[in-house]
């Protein structure tokens, strides 16, 4: 029978092989492709952590006459390091897949610049990776970084880079523009985590639940409900944060991805449906989320102008806006265990809503040195119509000339994306564009799709141009 030292040495060698198989992908990557700087930082971090993990294992194995108890302890270190590397494993290839040619680079630059308008996040950057799921993800850095650093501490390795978020986008949408307007929601999750807002909200939710529900309500079950409400709070905060950052483009992308227009009847009125009004343990109902997004669109000055758009996307927003908070339910379709009243849970959540808005305003406000998030609606209103006019004529709207002989105006990325998305969702715009182009058929969904993609490309090009121009000016 082998002794414990021999066994643990073999375990360590096995982990060494596993770690190398991950870090080698970062070290020996294809030289023909390039990556955004934050991704390069991630690869360096992984390579350094791998080197430290391997040297730690070697050093531990070389300690002479290790007691059996210490060998067993090392075996458990190896188990937890393997699990930790298993966690890292899930990100390395997705980040490698997302090179600069497979990301909407200019759009992301514009988005990050907008995010950095928030004073406390002025030096935050993001790594983007590809996900195989049709979904957008944010890795909770508030949770992930301390754990990554804890893993690193075992092997005396590097700390995970500061002020670096990690966001996953569907691999198929790497060249899309409109649907990627959902990304700011993920930035909201980053903010929520960085500012430890979940913990703060959990305290308030717990206090409210205790006063709403029976005091003898079991602690474990209560934690489950607190988590459920905290999930709703976080998702809603992220939605509203995205609207504040991005304007109505986020809401339109939301309606598009979730097919929220299925809530409409043939007259674009609300089609009653219990399913559409039901909270689930992770998310508020889509219509509830849209309803709250409209409230921010109103307060930020987007709504009045947007309502003029001839689009079922906008009608969906109107329908959501006309519902009442009390129309929404929890535990109707999936009855609870009857140990609590589900209505009280929704009541608690509704009681927290003003705090979410307050927190949003606080986070996006400026400080003595920086003004905070600039009003995107103003930027859109001042140049939106002209941007759409350029798109109608198939012209990239990088520099706008309001009148003949006037000086060119350079629109902001936020104005470009909102004007372009509004143009795209207006049911008459694309058919009109196609009617002016030879050999196209406005009833052909292939043609409509092709020219919609062109609109996205012209907008992306314009964003790229205005970012370059802005850099030049600075």
């Amino acid at each position, binding site marked *: 029978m082998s002794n414990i030292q021999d066994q643990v040495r073999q375990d360590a060698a096995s982990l060494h092989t596993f770690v190398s198989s991950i870090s080698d992908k970062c070290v020996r990557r294809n030289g023909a492709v390039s990556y955004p700087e934050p991704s390069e930082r991630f690869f360096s971090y992984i390579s350094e952590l791998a080197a430290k993990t391997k040297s730690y294992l070697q050093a531990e194995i070389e300690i002479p006459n290790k007691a059996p108890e210490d060998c067993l302890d090392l075996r458990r270190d190896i188990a937890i390091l393997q699990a930790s590397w298993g966690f890292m494993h899930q990100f390395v290839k997705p980040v490698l897949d997302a090179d600069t040619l497979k990301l909407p680079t200019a759009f992301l630059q514009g988005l990050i610049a907008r995010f950095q308008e928030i004073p406390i996040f002025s030096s935050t950057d993001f790594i983007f990776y590809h996900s195989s799921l049709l979904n957008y993800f944010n890795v*909770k850095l508030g949770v992930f970084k301390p754990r990554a650093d804890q893993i690193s501490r075992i092997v005396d390795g590097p700390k995970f880079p500061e002020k670096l978020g990690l966001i996953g986008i569907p691999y198929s949408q790497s060249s899309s523009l409109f649907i990627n307007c959902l990304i700011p929601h993920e930035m909201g999750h980053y903010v929520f985590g960085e500012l430890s807002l979940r913990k703060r909200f959990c305290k308030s939710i717990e206090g409210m639940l205790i006063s709403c529900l029976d005091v003898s309500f079991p602690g474990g079950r209560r934690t489950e409900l607190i988590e459920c409400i905290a999930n709703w709070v976080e998702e809603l905060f992220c939605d509203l944060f995205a609207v504040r950052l991005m304007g109505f483009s986020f809401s339109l992308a939301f309606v598009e991805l979730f097919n929220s227009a299925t809530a409409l009847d043939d007259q674009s009125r609300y089609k009653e449906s219990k399913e559409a009004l039901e909270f689930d343990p992770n998310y508020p109902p889509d219509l509830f989320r849209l309803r709250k997004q409209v409230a921010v669109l109103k307060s930020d000055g987007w709504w009045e102008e947007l309502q003029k758009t001839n689009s079922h996307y906008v009608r969906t927003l109107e329908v959501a806006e006309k519902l009442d908070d009390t129309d929404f339910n929890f535990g109707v379709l999936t009855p609870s265990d009857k140990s609590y009243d589900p209505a009280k849970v929704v009541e608690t959540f509704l009681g927290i809503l003003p705090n979410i808005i307050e927190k949003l305003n606080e986070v996006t406000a400026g400080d003595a040195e920086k003004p905070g998030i600039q009003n995107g609606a103003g930027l859109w209103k001042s140049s939106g119509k002209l941007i759409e006019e350029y798109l109608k004529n198939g012209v990239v709207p990088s520099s706008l000339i309001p009148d003949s002989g006037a000086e060119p105006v350079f629109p902001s990325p936020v104005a470009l994306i909102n004007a372009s998305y509004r143009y795209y969702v207006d049911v008459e715009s694309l058919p009109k564009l196609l009617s002016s182009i030879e050999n196209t058929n406005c009833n052909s969904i292939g043609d409509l799709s092709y020219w919609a993609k062109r609109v996205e490309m012209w907008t992306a090009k314009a964003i790229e141009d205005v970012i370059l121009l802005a850099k030049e000016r600075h």
Partner: protein
Amino acid sequence: MLATMSDNTNSLSLALDARTAVKALNVLRKSGGEADSELKTAMEDALISLKALNSGAPLFASLSPSSAFENYEQIQTLQEVESAFPGVDVQAKLATVTNDNDPAQRHVGITFAIEFFSALEKRALQKFNRSYGFGI
């Protein structure tokens, strides 16, 4: 939708925290000195969470900012591990690590805490390793 990728982070976090506690407890058992502030906080958070589970006392108002027990999955794991020690007053035993002045009692408490946090580490790690689905 628009989810955060956090499902398996919670279990891994708990496993790492429990591992850190076990390492600190091992050092304490050998040295016989005072628990450091990190270990004291870890023990207090475990006690607060167990108290909230068993008596319905508030949880989030009392936890430290770095607590390992801040979501249902982690609390549930704690509950599962506690139930694996039937007839044992887990809270009282863990409390002796930082409170008891009697060295013999304290030593017993530390030995129990190592057993408890090792079980927590294993359970959390098991959950993490199963969190990728049903491939194998």
